[in-house]
């Protein structure tokens, strides 16, 4: 039987062997944390603390009334020493709160709910909102927005994303091995919050042990299905996952999963949701895979939000040889970071350190030879070559004839391009110079 998948895609070397056998271990407490007030897609939070104020772990330090947003919490106990603009992993300066860790790990009082599955949909959604939960696969979209679909778009399926198709990253894999029951509970909470009868968990088949563990954990649940997926990038992209598992295509030109009755959440998010609802625990830590040929001891760490990248590097034995490139996230869609002083945020799935030998160095590229490779592999069925040619020529409006805004920048086209064209860059340029529609 062939495994569920989508049309197109590529097979980059997965490099997961570097860190897949390292159990999740807590990173040591950092001396200070930098907590950006905007770690998510949507409205940034307003600071709710002042310089000099003592805070406890789990205390709200930033929040806003805006719907598309998520509050941020102190990840350590200690004293607020600065509020101001600090760089984030994407290279932008964002308003942040700096807390000096007193290392006492004093927590605010958390409300436990033993019979959480009897809570109403509204109560569950409120708890998820209060905990500041956002999508932890990388996009950091506020979860509560996905849980509040308009009435005319009924949801019938929730899919948990355990594909983890980015090379190097193994955090979701370790969570599925180590905490499968809690992930399933998280899925059940989501299903109850949305009143949905069908839950699915999709996992790429290069993780057969994770598939087995999740199947075992979900064995008592007749309405939850664990599915092995073909190993292919970008299998973990939301639209590709829905296509593979539910056989539905999210409509082109701005369609959302809810348009086809589906909500997708990352497995790590499901775990965070479980902890939020069961124990009242806000999102103050996450699993980060620290890997790459340029790090001495690759591993999977449970990291306090706001911990600096430099601290994580030290935790993993420091760089090995000449580390010349650091990525926040995986190598296909992650960001190259320019400083190790940037903090881990809710959306930081990994830190990949690459030595000289693994880096595609020169930015030189050739003209497009129209070899069709990018067209063959584009999961969105686009013509990346035309997008790159038109964008390079500066005729951005014409890019829209080739469905520019359907591109989600997975990098599959640029990966296969024999002329080494920076196609994703051309696409972003065109998007920045024109408007959808």
């Amino acid at each position, binding site marked *: 039987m062939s495994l569920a998948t989508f049309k197109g895609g590529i097979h980059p070397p997965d490099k997961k062997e570097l860190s897949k056998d390292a159990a999740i271990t807590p990173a040591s407490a950092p001396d200070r944390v930098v907590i950006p007030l905007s770690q998510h897609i949507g409205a940034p939070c307003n600071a709710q603390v002042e310089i000099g104020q003592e805070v406890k772990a789990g205390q709200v330090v930033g929040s806003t009334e805006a719907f598309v947003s998520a509050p941020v919490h102190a990840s350590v106990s200690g004293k607020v020493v600065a509020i101001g603009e600090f760089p984030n992993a994407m290279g932008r300066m964002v308003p942040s709160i700096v807390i000096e860790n007193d290392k006492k790990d004093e927590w605010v009082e958390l409300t436990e709910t033993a019979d959480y599955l009897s809570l109403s949909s509204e109560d569950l959604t409120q708890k998820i909102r209060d905990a500041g939960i956002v999508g932890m696969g990388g996009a950091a979209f506020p979860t509560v927005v996905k849980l509040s679909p308009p009435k005319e778009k009924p949801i019938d399926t929730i899919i948990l994303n355990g594909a983890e198709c980015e090379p190097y990253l193994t955090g979701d894999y370790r969570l599925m091995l180590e905490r499968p029951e809690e992930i399933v509970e998280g899925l059940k909470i989501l299903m109850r919050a949305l009143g949905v009868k069908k839950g699915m968990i999709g996992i790429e088949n290069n993780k057969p042990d994770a598939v087995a563990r999740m199947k075992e954990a979900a064995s008592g649940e007749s309405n939850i299905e664990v599915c092995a997926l073909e190993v292919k990038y970008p299998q973990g992209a939301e639209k590709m996952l829905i296509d593979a598992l539910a056989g539905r295509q999210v409509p082109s030109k701005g369609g959302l999963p809810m348009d086809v009755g589906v909500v997708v959440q990352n497995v790590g998010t499901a775990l965070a949701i479980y902890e939020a609802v069961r124990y009242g625990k806000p999102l103050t830590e996450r699993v980060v895979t620290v890997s790459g040929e340029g790090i001495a001891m690759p591993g999977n760490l449970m990291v306090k939000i706001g911990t600096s990248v430099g601290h994580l590097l030290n935790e993993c034995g420091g760089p090995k040889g000449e580390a010349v490139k650091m990525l926040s996230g995986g190598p296909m869609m992650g960001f190259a970071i320019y400083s190790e002083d940037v903090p881990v945020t809710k959306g930081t799935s990994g830190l990949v350190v690459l030595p000289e030998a693994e880096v595609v160095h020169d930015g030189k590229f*050739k003209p497009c030879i129209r070899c069709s490779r990018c067209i063959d592999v584009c999961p969105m*069925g686009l013509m990346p070559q035309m997008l790159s040619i038109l964008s390079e020529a500066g005729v951005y409006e014409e890019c829209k004839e080739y469905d520019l805004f359907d591109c989600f920048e997975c990098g599959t086209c640029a990966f296969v391009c024999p002329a080494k064209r920076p196609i*994703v860059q051309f696409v972003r340029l065109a998007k920045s110079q024109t408007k959808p529609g």
Partner: protein
Amino acid sequence: MALAKKEHELIVSISPHIRSEESVEKIMWTVTLSLVPAFVAGLYFFGPAALMTTAICIVSALASEWLVEKMTNRELTLKDGSAFLTGLLLGMNLPPTAPIYIPIVGSFVAVAITKQLFGGLGFNIFNPALIGRAFVLVTWPKAMTTWVAPTAAFTAMDAETTATPLGLLKEEGLGKLLEVFGDKANLYWELFLGHSAGSLGETSVFALLLGAAYLLYKRYITWQIPGSYLATVAVLAWVFGGSDPETGAFIWFAGDPLIHLLSGGLMLGVFFMATDYVTVPSVRRGQLVFGVGCGLITMLIRLKGGFPEGVMFAILLMNCFSPLIDRSFKSRTFGLAQKKEEKKEHKH
């Protein structure tokens, strides 16, 4: 500082941060390699003259590339293999004993005018080698249609001139062709091996298929254009290619597709020039249209036109349509196929 590198030494670039090992150079040299069997077959059948002609083609192709890039102050691209490949392809498309000015002028027209003056690799509208060949064909028609018998390997004498199988078929009919080659089985066999008159790299179907199979296996070319091109030629040859052996009167559905498939420049054109990335449509569905179009024009010229062979003009004419085909057959964006999916679900 945890890192050995200072902050300003960290490389920052846009995703993706890993790339496949494919490159333009690799593609060009692989295609060149896949032409080696057919080239060697050409040497075997046509001797040192074939080597000479091809060598001059390659050298002047490289020189033309260098010259134009020097004159226009652009980066030298000799190493990418593109000019070498154009020279080799042009050489394989010439009569083995072409006078020395033909490969020189042909290569210049191919590389300097058809490719470089249009902007270099990736920007040319027409297949450079074929424009080069078309130019010398119309400029020196006599020299370009003087063919030698494939006897170099077998005799020490000066090669005798003869007609190509397609030329015989056109001018004197199937009867004469069979008379020269004995019987049909022998005709097929000689054509397959390449033991017939023609351009120096086009005659050995066997050697060409060897190279084509390698390219297909490496996925450097795909089946769409070769498949639709060959199928169209075969069908049209069968439907319209027949005639009464006595009177020469036209008979429906009596043609011999195999003769048309095995002879002339078809195999070389189909697998190595109608698949040139730059000048053919990029969308796979559009490539089918391109292949059918090439097949139609090829057979129109072979059966009704003034030339015995039509592959070159067919590909060049279809090259004009490539941008149009690409615009008409854009690939299907994910999420637009919605209605079709729904229909399927209804059936279940």
